[in-house]
């Protein structure tokens, strides 16, 4: 790996943000007609499409659970999504891991007991990546799941926090992700106040974790608002269109 670049200069990060700032986020829902629910997210330079299909018959049959629905998730990065090599030979270790953690996030919020014997598929396709794609993917998949009409107890969001030197920072981009001292993505169910995902690279002290969590919860309010706005927008647009007639 090349020499570590200076990540914070005069209190500003390499893209001009201060430590607690999010990158600009734009979310759109219902972007794929054939899916039960879908969403597109632009989170900084990340561009991700998430789609949800189902509940439908679980295939192969042995994967079905007679008590509840099963969630199957596939996270994949497009071959052209980043500078490194991705997706030329099927899912790699990293993609399998992210698929697993995403699946576990949704197993805690989707009301699976309503659909025994069926499966719900979540597909997350990363078109362009710039760090923090698992968090952005979960945020988009939550919007897709809600727009599909599958009952959920909460609308989860995810965002990462980390550390550069002695400074705790929010929402790491690719450069910070590669060279930071710690990176901690978290997924939260805001109503139930539950942590659905917590991973960490590097080390953080107890105080630093507390500070990171409070930053994540504060940023979560913004992200939740964007998710809700994205979900309501298609219906408001139709209302406006017919109001003119």
């Amino acid at each position, binding site marked *: 790996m090349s020499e570590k670049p200076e990540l914070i200069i005069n209190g500003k990060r390499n893209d001009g943000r201060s430590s607690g700032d999010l990158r600009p986020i734009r979310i759109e829902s219902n972007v794929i007609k054939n899916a039960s629910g879908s969403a597109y997210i632009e989170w900084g330079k990340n561009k991700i499409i998430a789609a949800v299909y189902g509940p439908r018959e679980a295939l192969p049959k042995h994967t079905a659970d007679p008590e509840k629905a099963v969630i199957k998730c596939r996270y994949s990065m497009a071959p052209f999504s980043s500078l490194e090599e991705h997706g030329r030979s099927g899912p790699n270790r990293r993609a399998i891991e992210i698929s697993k953690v995403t699946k576990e996030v949704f197993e805690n919020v989707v009301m699976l007991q309503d659909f025994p014997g069926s499966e719900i598929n979540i597909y997350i396709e990363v078109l362009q990546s710039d760090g923090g794609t698992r968090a952005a993917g979960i945020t988009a998949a939550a919007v897709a799941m809600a727009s599909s009409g599958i009952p959920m107890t909460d609308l989860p969001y995810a965002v990462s926090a980390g550390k550069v030197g002695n400074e705790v920072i929010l929402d790491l981009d690719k450069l910070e992700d590669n060279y930071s001292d710690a990176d901690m993505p978290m997924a939260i169910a805001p109503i139930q106040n539950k942590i659905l995902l917590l991973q960490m690279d590097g080390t953080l002290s107890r105080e630093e974790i507390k500070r990171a969590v409070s930053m994540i919860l504060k940023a979560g309010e913004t992200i939740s608002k964007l*998710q809700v706005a994205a979900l309501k927008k298609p219906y408001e647009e139709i209302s406006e269109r017919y109001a003119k007639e």
Partner: protein
Amino acid sequence: MQRIVVPGERLEEKPVHLENTIIHENNTYSTVMGIYDNEKRNLVPLEGIWYPRHGDEVIGVVEEEKLNVFTVNLHSTYKGIILVKYSEGDIAPGDIIEASVKELDKTKTVVLVRPRKLSGGKILAVKPTKIPRILGKGDSMITQLTEGTKTFIKIGMNGVLWMRGGNLDLATKVILRIEEEPHKTGITERIKTMLEKSV
């Protein structure tokens, strides 16, 4: 007042038992995208899945006959079955049928009875949550549609419609329009104008 709600949005600051809601720490939250009327205390889902109920009339396609059971594709999460002894011997795989829901068994398979074969015509799948909208208050919408297009329409609660005769194209167009429109009052009037313009 009516408002659009999303999963995890608080509906009431007290526990209210409604469909498609959960109660958490004495507050009521929605679990689906829907329209909530806080005066009538009514949550109507905008998107959703059909939950089979006893007596629901459904439309489906017979898929195969195996071990004295016909399986029926209901275009939904749930699969339908008809015992051959209840089928009265006049249905075969490939047929479009109308039937009633008898029960939901343990594995959430829909047990159907009284199958009637529907010959000719075409089927159209819409969102199951819009079926009450297509029927209208006291069947007003569907009556208006049948009169306007002279099409014979049968409605399955699973979100599958069967249509035959008359102006099929117009009927399809109107139904898709009803499916797309949000839950706003005065839709019957708007559809009436649409039908009159097309004639």
